């Protein structure tokens, strides 16, 4: 990676940065580096987007119906969805 040796040191900070977990001092120093370094800016943007894309997949998490009924059966519990105790 050309001219990227010194940027290596920023990688862990970049991860903390997207989490908003850097101290204000370190944050200021990283931000001043980001102003000058386009490559690191791209890493920040694409890292953030990577996390967002994965986070969004969680919204589609669903338990397949068959897995769900076998789970309730195994636990000897009445499935609220099947029993109609509370429908939602």
């Amino acid at each position: 990676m050309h001219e990227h040796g010194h940027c290596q040191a920023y990688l862990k900070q970049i991860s903390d940065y997207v989490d908003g977990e850097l101290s204000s001092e370190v944050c200021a120093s990283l931000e001043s580096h980001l102003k000058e370094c386009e490559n690191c800016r791209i890493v920040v943007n694409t890292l953030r987007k990577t996390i967002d894309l994965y986070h969004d997949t969680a919204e589609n998490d669903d338990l397949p119906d068959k897995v769900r009924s076998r789970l309730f059966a195994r636990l000897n519990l009445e499935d609220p969805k099947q029993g109609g105790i509370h429908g939602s």
Partner: protein
Amino acid sequence: MNAETVRDEGFVDLLISGDRQAFSELIEQTSAKIYALGMRVLGNEQDAEDMLQETYLKALKALPNFEKRSSINTWLFRIATNEALMLLRKKKTGFNMVAIDQSDEEDEAPFEILDWCCLPEQEMVSAETRTMLNKAADQLSPALRIVFQLRDVDGFSGQETAEILGINEDAVKTRLVRARLKLREELSAYFRDRMEGGVNHA
């Protein structure tokens, strides 16, 4: 997941007392995520389902002794990850929980420097992209995959993730950085192909 209800102390007391409706409610709120964790770590439906059932069986048994030192959510996910790791260990000798705390992998410098954030939204959420996201995550080592799943997909904090896995927060952070950077590389390579190979974004 309805974090508010899960954190509610009255609800936890009901669980501890053996209230079956409360336990059903707990399943309602957490099972999809536990199953997704199983799919992510174990990679197939049968193992994920075994892990799901064992998790709630163990939780049901252990609840009377729950001491409220952590949230019920963290506690449950700890049981789930232990189950998943145990199944993984049975299948792949050589993987153990200790490995999650070892820094045996080198950090790699970012190689793909391409700003693909401006790609159209439908490109990012396509079924093909989703398949690629799963494939990329499956390529991570189990130790990285599980930290990434808990932290970035399920939204647990660093401290909660450390509690769930029984490792320290620094180890969580190190693993998370590696997982994130590896995935960013994979995604960048994928989107580079999309941008260069016929996707007209002019």
